[in-house]
């Protein structure tokens, strides 16, 4: 949660989440690779150490000048291996030193692995899977990244950069889907639903306890609850009702009970199931959208219930002009804000977005505040 503060930026964020009136719509930078590119750091260097990634975040935050916070202050590509049970092509290794990392979904998980998960339990299976099928040492890399959490927090605090989240947690759907590949996993849901469900029920208890406790210990205001391939648009309603929603709802309640803000980072299109989010605690969650969900519909259904964040389209930030960005953001602030709204890119700011476009996003919030 965010405590009342004399810092107007923290105060804006706190009020936005609590659905209270704000003096200005807060602006959040979800920069990741863009932070490196815009500050002249290669992506290879950015990924080489959690504190370097944080330095790029801080420098980018200062370059923009009038944003209110960063989303995550650091990043590691091993987190993608961990979240999705997939390979990741990395700059400086499989790619050139400044080429963006890319998730490589190649079906490393087999149908027999559902039984192995049921027999071994998730932590043991996951550790074996990461090291044997993705890359030896990848789990240690991820744990090393997590171990830098206190340094990252200190760095952000010393630089006076507010941030929202120090962690990402997930429901069983996401790693199983990444491990099997999207298409194969969908077929599994039709052909062996009971087996998949049994594996999920073995995975879920305790799956995110360490991450939630870690975020709380670090003083993180919130934690991401990731939803990517589990979006409504991807799944027939009965599948979503059975394999997605119960887990997201329970996770949200767990995060809230730990005193953290559940940040529902929902990529792709969740429009169909927006009414279900009314089942979550009022005035305590953030719904972060990537421009695929109908954000105006989200406001209509959830405006009195949860803060909405997003969703300046990546393509606009990448290829549009500053005037186009400003105009788009002004419309968003008018339609979704000013109360209960955080202006942000839809998912990450794309790596090739010009600085002027990101500044235009932040400037639009200032201009709207008058």
């Amino acid at each position, binding site marked *: 949660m965010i405590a009342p503060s004399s810092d107007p930026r923290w105060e804006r964020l706190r009020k936005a989440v609590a659905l209270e009136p704000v003096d200005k719509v807060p602006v959040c930078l979800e920069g990741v690779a863009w932070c490196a590119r815009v500050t002249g750091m290669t992506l290879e260097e950015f990924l080489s150490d959690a504190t370097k990634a944080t330095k790029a975040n801080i420098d980018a935050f200062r370059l923009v000048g009038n944003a209110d916070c960063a989303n995550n202050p650091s990043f590691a590509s091993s987190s993608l291996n961990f979240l999705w049970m997939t390979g990741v092509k990395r700059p400086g290794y499989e790619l050139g030193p400044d080429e963006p990392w890319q998730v490589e979904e190649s079906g490393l998980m087999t149908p027999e692995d559902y039984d192995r998960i049921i027999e071994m339990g998730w932590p043991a299976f996951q550790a074996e899977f990461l090291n044997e099928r993705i890359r030896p040492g990848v789990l240690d890399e991820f744990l090393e990244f997590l171990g830098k959490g206190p340094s990252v927090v200190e760095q952000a605090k010393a630089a006076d950069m507010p941030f929202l989240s120090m962690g990402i947690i997930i429901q069983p759907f996401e790693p199983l889907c990444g491990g099997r590949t*999207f298409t194969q996993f969908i077929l599994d849901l039709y*052909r062996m639903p009971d087996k998949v469900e049994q594996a999920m029920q073995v995975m879920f208890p305790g799956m995110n306890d360490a991450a939630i406790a870690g975020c709380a210990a670090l003083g993180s205001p919130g934690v991401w609850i990731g939803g990517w391939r589990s979006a409504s648009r991807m799944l027939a309603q009965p599948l979503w009702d059975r394999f997605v929603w119960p887990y997201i709802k329970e996770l949200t309640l767990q995060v809230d009970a730990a005193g953290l803000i559940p940040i529902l980072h929902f990529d792709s299109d969740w429009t169909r199931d927006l009414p279900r989010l009314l089942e979550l605690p009022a005035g305590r969650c953030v719904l972060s959208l990537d421009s695929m969900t109908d954000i105006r519909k989200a406001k209509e259904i959830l405006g009195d219930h949860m803060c909405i964040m997003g969703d300046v389209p990546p*393509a606009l930030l990448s290829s549009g002009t500053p005037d186009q960005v400003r105009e788009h953001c002004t419309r968003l602030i008018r339609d979704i804000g000013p109360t209960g709204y955080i202006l942000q890119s839809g998912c990450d700011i794309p790596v090739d977005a010009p600085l002027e476009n990101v500044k235009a996003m932040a400037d639009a919030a200032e201009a709207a505040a008058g």
Partner: protein
Amino acid sequence: MNETLTSALVEMREDDVLAAVGAAKAAGMAATDIIADLQAGMKTIGDKYEAGEYFLSELIMSAEIFKRALAELGLDQSAADTGARGTVVLGTVHTDIHDIGKNIVASVLSANGFRVVDLGVDVPVEKFVAAVKEHSAQVVGLSCLLTTAFPAMQETIEALAAAGLRDKVTVVIGGGPVSDDLAEQLGADGAGASAQEAVNLAAKAVEGGAA
């Protein structure tokens, strides 16, 4: 029309589809007629997707059942390609390796009667040009997930123009960050937000109407 077969497909009852295909085959029904019934089912599924009753999972599952039904007939995709509605060359453009969306589009286009030439991922510009020439494609589908791949999309479209092919093909872009505005900016003919939209755009390109 074999109602048992088409309704089993529309309702994702895989075993029932395969049984109905086996029964129709045993009864001496021509493979082409069985395929036509399956494609009628795919058309209904596409309509339900457009109406918001079905979602991506149904498009994927039905395309898979369609593929298995062809195998049950002792045929592969080339049988469905005979008399295809048109040919689509498809690939994820150079510098991008993401293929989930592209693979789904390929399956759904195939099951809706299009012949698909899938070039894979990180496809060089020249390979698109060569494939359009070799297969006399009417439609080119360019996919990407990364905004950094937009220049590669543009280069591909320009290369098709330089090879004198641009007027002969409809270029459709697809993938997470694409939009109609981007299509216009890059010189493409349209952007597909979903696999079903890709079918509709391909149908419009080759038949001048909706799927």
